[in-house]
């Protein structure tokens, strides 16, 4: 299975982006580069990353050289210029978690998914974060997060089971979407 996100690339969305850019421009007269960060957030929230097409669009609309947009987007660890998986897996890199064996958990995740930290699985289901710091749940160390779900007291042998839940979720979502598309197509046909 190859996980594909919903079609997010709609004309309405790009119009919304232009309106957003116009608002940010007006809010930051004479300082378009200040407007760049919120605009990039807006793009990343939509796609999960910042696609090249959006980089070019933002550069044009905001009047910031494309090279500078790339510079800013690549500088901040929150932004990604590569497509991300459906779920982002992060293992806490704080002291408490480290002492309680977080590295072994991260190693096991990478082994299971056959990727390195920072990479995305070829089926586009998981991205393993390379930039998690202390997640603020030291009492439950070691902690891993998958998107907004917190998994506490994780042992390496738990990893396979946890990941499997999300693989199933992704598969389910894809199936649902396929069925919906079929219903859609049939109703169009009728």
């Amino acid at each position, binding site marked *: 299975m190859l996980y594909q996100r919903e079609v997010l690339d709609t004309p309405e969305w790009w119009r919304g982006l232009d309106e957003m850019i116009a608002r940010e421009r007006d809010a930051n007269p004479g300082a*378009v*580069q200040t407007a760049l960060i919120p605009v990039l957030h807006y793009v990343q929230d939509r796609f999960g990353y910042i696609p090249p097409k959006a*980089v*070019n669009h933002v550069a044009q609309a905001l009047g910031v*050289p494309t*090279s500078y947009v*790339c510079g800013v987007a690549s*500088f901040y660890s929150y932004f990604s210029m590569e497509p991300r998986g459906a779920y982002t897996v992060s293992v806490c890199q704080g002291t408490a978690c480290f002492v309680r064996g977080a590295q072994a958990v991260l190693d096991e995740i990478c082994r299971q998914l056959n990727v390195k930290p920072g990479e995305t699985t070829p089926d586009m289901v998981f991205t393993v974060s390379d930039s998690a710091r202390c997640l603020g749940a030291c009492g439950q160390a070691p902690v891993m997060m998958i998107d907004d779900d917190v998994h506490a007291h994780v042992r390496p042998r738990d990893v396979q089971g946890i990941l499997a839940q999300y693989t199933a979720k992704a598969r389910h979502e894809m199936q649902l979407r396929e069925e919906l598309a079929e219903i859609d197509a049939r109703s169009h046909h009728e």
Partner: protein
Amino acid sequence: MSDITLTINGFTVTVPEGSTIMEAADAASIHIPRLCHHPKLSIQGACRVCVVEVEGSNKLAASCCYPAEEGMSVRTNTPEILRLRRDIVELLIDNHPEDCNTCERDGNCELQRLARDMGIRERLFAGERKRYEKDTSSPALIRDPEKCVLCGRCVRICGEVQEAACLSQVHRGFSTVVMPAHDAPFAETVCIGCGQCAKVCPTAAFVEKDGTREFLRAIEDPEMIVVVQTAPAVRAAIGEEFGFEPGVAWEGKMFAALRRLGVDVVFDTQFAADLTIMEEAAEFVHRFTSGGPLPNITSCCPGWIKYAEHFHPELLPNLSTAKSPMSMQGAMIKSYWAERMDVDPARIYSVAIMPCTAKKFEAEREELGLDGLRIVDCVLTTREFAWVMKHMGIDFASLPEEEPDSPLGESTGAAAIFGATGGVTEAALRTAYHMVFGEDLPEDAIEFRQVRGLEGLRFADVPFGEATVRIALAHGLGAANEIFDRVARGEIELDFIEVMACPGGCIGGGGQPYEKEGEMPLDEERLRKRAQSLYRLDDDRKLRCSHHNPDIIRVYKEYLGEPNSHRAHELLHTYYYPRVPLGIRPQEAQV
């Protein structure tokens, strides 16, 4: 603004308020080592090589960006500072390739000099090496991120001076790389090939694309007729590569050197500069007297032309359609001269020696070709030319003075000054005047001093009989943008704009000799001396107007007919087209 007084290494110095510690030290004849700092660019404070001790502060200060204050006491060379600075430079080179012997910048690399001055004689740290592919996609320049020390000068000159903003620092920390948007190959970016990045680069992270191998092969090939032309600005700087001070244009030795390299025919781009003036002046007079399009904008500079195609498609109709002197010379060599000598143009290997890296791109433009042949087969920069001479054992200093060959070698003083900002305008005015009024300018009015100089932006109203020609001149594309903005806002009306991409004009081109030790790239004194050498050539020539060049008169009579004739248009004019990606000018200081 008032003055402030401080002491540096115990010596008292008084400087204007607002000076940095580095500027104050310079004023006190104390040199603080530096790397990322450049006096013409914004302050980056990135390399930390210029750290100093300020009394009363427990931290070291980067002197390039630390303001000098009244009563301040600064130390620049205590044993501790010297040790720390040495460590900083050593950390800079610890992931740098250890290939100085085979590096193109060997002998004129600022990092190499710094390491020497810091006394780095062994490598105590051995860091991880950065591994990146070279980008050789552009005909003009090679980008080699392994040599980069992230000083950011290239990023700043590209954004702040040239307003092309092709480059940016991408990623973070150890992974930081200077690259174009999307890490695209240079050839697919807004890079205009001006080569100013290579000029300001302290190492070899940017260098010109090599043309010397092909050139050396061609001169060894008995089938090839190697015909060489040399741009005006080359003679103004070539001596510097052989230890001569700038200020003398060594054209005679240059021609002699070419013959000793085994070149078959030695022509001069200055002939085509005169030809350009005939075409461009006729075109301007026509546009000026019959309704435009005005302002008429010069088209000799290939960096500017590519910039206009990316950033100012709206201005393309205003560009002169005249080809650059290099391309006119190339076209004349492969048409007029080939016919006259009864040789197959395909056997002619046309070489242009230029102060310029963008000319390498111009030479590859398809629309400039003639019957499927390139009109310029190989472009060498001044630096490459000097290297070829050293490689082939030419003793430049003791060469005799020789003349170029006929019939495409003769030139007037008007052509010589093409190499300096303002020169094209001055040369065009001399001939345009003759075209309009049928007589020459009086002897004492032939020099248009008001268009000379090194200010980035200059304006001049030149009386032309009853009318006035309103002129603006820019060198550096940021300065050119300033002119276009003022015209667009309706603040000024202009008839003629001269644009040269490089600061100083061609004499400051991206292919000119690297600065000597103790000098910064874009050194104004050096540019001024190079310009003077060309104005001196003009002064010394008997003929100072392009239309008096006997070879020019002959080619029009024998071959071209009138300026702007059908034949002239076929051979000597071109067209321009908008390019992608569309350029976006930086609106504020870069990130």
